[in-house]
């Protein structure tokens, strides 16, 4: 398969993730859509690694995997803290910073 097709799939996944971030209101689902966007970037990185025959792109993809795991951990921690305080789990309702 030509590398270009992998890039097209990656672009489509990224766009679907961006649309999800813009339209959904549940922060859990927004985190999932961010995962989609990061995975799209990963697919592009691995495709370019294959294109050039070097493994550097795969290293980048693994680092992105680590960063995504960190982001999920902190994001889910925030959601659990929101739930504990009885705040609504809805990004439209949460529009002020309030310790």
């Amino acid at each position, binding site marked *: 398969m030509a590398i270009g097709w992998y890039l097209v799939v990656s672009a489509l996944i990224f766009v679907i993730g961006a649309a999800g971030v813009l339209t959904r209101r549940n922060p859990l689902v927004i985190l999932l859509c961010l995962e989609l966007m990061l995975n799209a970037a990963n697919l592009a990185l691995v495709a370019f690694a294959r294109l050039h025959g070097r493994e550097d792109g795969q290293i980048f993809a693994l680092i992105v995997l680590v960063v995504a*795991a960190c982001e999920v951990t902190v994001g889910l921690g925030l959601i659990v803290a929101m739930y504990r305080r009885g705040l609504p789990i809805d990004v439209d309702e949460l529009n002020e910073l309030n310790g």
Partner: protein
Amino acid sequence: MAPVFFFLAALGALSGAIGVVMLRNPFYSVLALVFHLISLAALFLLLRAEFVAAAQVIVYAGAVMVLYVFVVAYVGSGEELTSGGGLRVLGPVFALVLAIELCIAMLGSALKGISGKGAPYIPGFGSPRHIGTLFLTKYLFPFEVASLLLLVAAIGAVVLARRRRGLEADPEYQARLHKPVSHLAGSMAESVGARRDR
């Protein structure tokens, strides 16, 4: 054979992604993402990235998604209310425009490289041995920074999600604070039982 596998995996990845966005129940969104991640791992395998594919399945589909499932089960997967805000309409339009632009940029570009099959395959490309060698020589610093980042995220999550006294409105705790006490409370007369309040 490779094109067949590519189209199956790409179809799986795209349908999983659409499922994440479209499904109303967050629990089903998480399951759709698991399907998407496994399809994506198949695409990684087709691109000869064996180690990345294995890490994807073990770390993402295994560990991170379990975390998601637990949080969804804890918070409760309530149905989402739909609202008619301006962004609800503008979001898909923006996404469509971005998709068209990206497809023009890639398919319409005169880049020779992306219409080819890539560099010739060398045995061992993308194997754990090569990746590990790169991580411990050329990319040692990012490797260490990534480990530090994981530590920071783990501590941050514990600090964020721990049970805090005073921040939450605990009715039991509030009731205990405002309990009326008699003027003899805590005195010796009360402790020996000689004098009980009313």
